[in-house]
């Protein structure tokens, strides 16, 4: 665990760079983490991020399959929004824990 300053805020992050406390998250933090991953966030990205955060609060397991059935994006679009890390990168940007699902 480490403390990192993202978008002017001191946040606690894991060794992998995931936020320890998802309540510390805000849009500026999301933008800054996304920039590190070479992703420019659009409204569509935020729809996905908000969905992931809602599901995490509801303690539902996240898979790319469930995101694909969310009605927000299909799986192909999810890969387009978060290339090479549809669940890993989106979770990191959403300020939620590293995904534990295999699917």
């Amino acid at each position, binding site marked *: 665990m480490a403390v990192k300053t993202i978008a002017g805020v001191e946040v606690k992050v894991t060794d992998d760079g995931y936020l320890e406390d998802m309540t510390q998250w805000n849009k500026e933090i999301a933008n800054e983490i996304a920039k590190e991953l070479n992703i420019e966030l659009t409204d569509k990205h935020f729809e996905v991020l908000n969905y992931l955060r809602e599901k995490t609060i509801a303690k539902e397991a996240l898979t790319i399959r469930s995101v694909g059935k969310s009605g927000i994006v299909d799986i192909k679009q999810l890969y387009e929004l978060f290339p090479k890390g*549809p669940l890993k990168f989106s979770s990191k940007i959403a300020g939620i824990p590293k995904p534990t*699902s*295999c699917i």
Partner: protein
Amino acid sequence: METKEKKPLEKVCIICAKGNLEDVYASLVMANGAVMEGIETNLFFTFFGLEGITKKSMNHLHTATTGNPAMKMPGGLPFPTMLGGLPGVESAVSSMMRKQMDELGMPPVDEFLEMITAGGGTIYACRLAVDMFKLTKADLSEEVKDIITIGEFYELCDGDRTQIIFT
């Protein structure tokens, strides 16, 4: 001096040569997992593995109830081999297993194949095995890109951070 630099995988080429439910899913989970990690992924189906991409059979795969020493009864007692050979038992056990997998959020095979190609993974069928089982491209899932020879498959496996996985 010892080098400690990490060299992440860049490409995996996965071969699925068996048509049991568990063997096909092992290949699918590994392939999908690789795609999700941003690893270039080729998935090659050969011999009985073709069951996993044949439209008619892919969503009805069976697990072996005879000759499978790991098979257990519900509750954990060993599954008697004699019982496994009775008509209908393999079918019933297999459908029960598919149901359990569904409850865990594992997609049926056709959807799993779509998930892999949606992320940029590529699926191939083996030329020799397709000919042997007298199949055509039309018998195979739409997600299958091509029917290729083993030589062509090896050509796809270039690169020094590439691994071939045989399940």
